């Protein structure tokens, strides 16, 4: 069995350079893959779900080679997997580790769920205020309706 730099057993192989998204809630793993369009990149993507975790009981993990996420992508991850940790890997070593944070304002990455909202009919950059970070509720700057975790879609 492969081991990491601290000698811990690895269920998902290490990557040389890239980003590890750790501590993903198991049910969100495939959603994270989808919102980051990881099905559509040329580099190696490794993932595991229902893995043992001391912190969470069970967790999911995704490792993406040669990819370092932009702030918009990090915000998307925060919205669907608020417990996630982002680990930047360079030369098989941890270069940076940080927890994702749900932002106060969400711009352009999410779609308003209201089909009658102007943002779904004209070219308008969507803007939301996050009014509840625990339940995840976003109030649309335009139609003032609330998009929640179960109705959120990403561009």
């Amino acid at each position, binding site marked *: 069995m492969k081991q990491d730099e601290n000698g811990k057993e690895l269920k998902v192989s290490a990557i040389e350079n890239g980003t590890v998204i750790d501590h993903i809630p198991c049910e969100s793993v495939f959603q994270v893959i989808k919102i980051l369009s990881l099905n559509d990149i040329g580099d190696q993507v490794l993932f595991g779900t229902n893995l043992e975790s001391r912190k969470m009981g069970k967790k999911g993990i995704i490792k993406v080679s040669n990819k370092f996420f932009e702030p918009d992508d990090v915000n998307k991850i925060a919205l669907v997997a608020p417990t996630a940790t982002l680990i930047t890997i360079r030369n098989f070593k941890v270069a940076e580790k940080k927890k994702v944070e749900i932002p106060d304002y969400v711009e352009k990455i999410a779609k308003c769920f209201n089909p009658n909202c102007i*943002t779904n*009919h004209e070219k308008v950059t969507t803007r939301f205020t996050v009014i509840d970070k625990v339940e995840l509720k976003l109030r649309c700057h*335009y*139609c*003032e*309706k609330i998009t929640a975790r179960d109705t959120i879609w990403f561009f």
Partner: protein
Amino acid sequence: MKNKSLVSINDYTREEQLKILDLAAGFEKQPTQSILEGFVIATLFFEPSTRTRLSFESAASRLGAKVIGFSDASSSSVQKGESLRDTIRTVSNYSDIIVMRHPKEGSARFASEVASVPVINAGDGANQHPTQTMLDMYSIRKTQGTLDDLNIAFVGDLKYGRTVHSLVMALCNYNTTFHLVSPEALKLPSSVKIHIKDNKHKYFQYTELAEVIHKVDILYMTRIQKERFSDPMDYEKVKNSCILKNQMLTDAKPNLKIMHPLPRVNEINVDVDDNPKAYYFQQALNGVYVRQALLASILGVK
């Protein structure tokens, strides 16, 4: 408030709202004044309306302004596929202020961001209708002498009624107790109720109108639209639960006034019209004064 768009009722602070109501009282005393001579007001109605459009045009005319615009999207270049963004940019060049009604929610906020002149929202889909709200507040204050500490019942379609949404939000700035009467399927949405909860006001929910009449100072009636129901049977079941008849008013408080944004269909029986508690036609007239106040204030002459 010069050049300040009015899109959502919360765009104006409590003090700004009260200033508009005071100005409106002045226009009620003297409705014809040539203070807006030389100004051009564009009224863009992408959706039909009688009261709102005509009362804006009446307000503008009584103050000496010229009105341009359209009353139906089919007679504008929207018909040719023009975007709202382009229409608004173009009309900004021709006018000093834009009054707009549009079927899409959020359209007014968007218009206010692309327009180079201020925008007054005259209704954006099921979202907001702030000038109706201001005239409702004017009517409440005029009949009750205050906006504070009142018991106000909202009756009918609380889910889709934008006049209800805006007025509930506005009254959260005053110490209001809310009585919400609607069929189960047409309850006030959580996106609006959250404002009541955030401000820690009391609210009660009912399905029968008769339960609240003796408790309240204002009865704000709205129309239940048949087309809101996917199953016509559901409409038949609830359509009579929120109808007001004159005989129901015998135990009402002496200061009770009945309001309605109009048009009415059958939710207020015509036998109520002659009751001194009926206020809905006077309420519609108040709309002209409030819109005069808004135009004068936003154009910077008052």
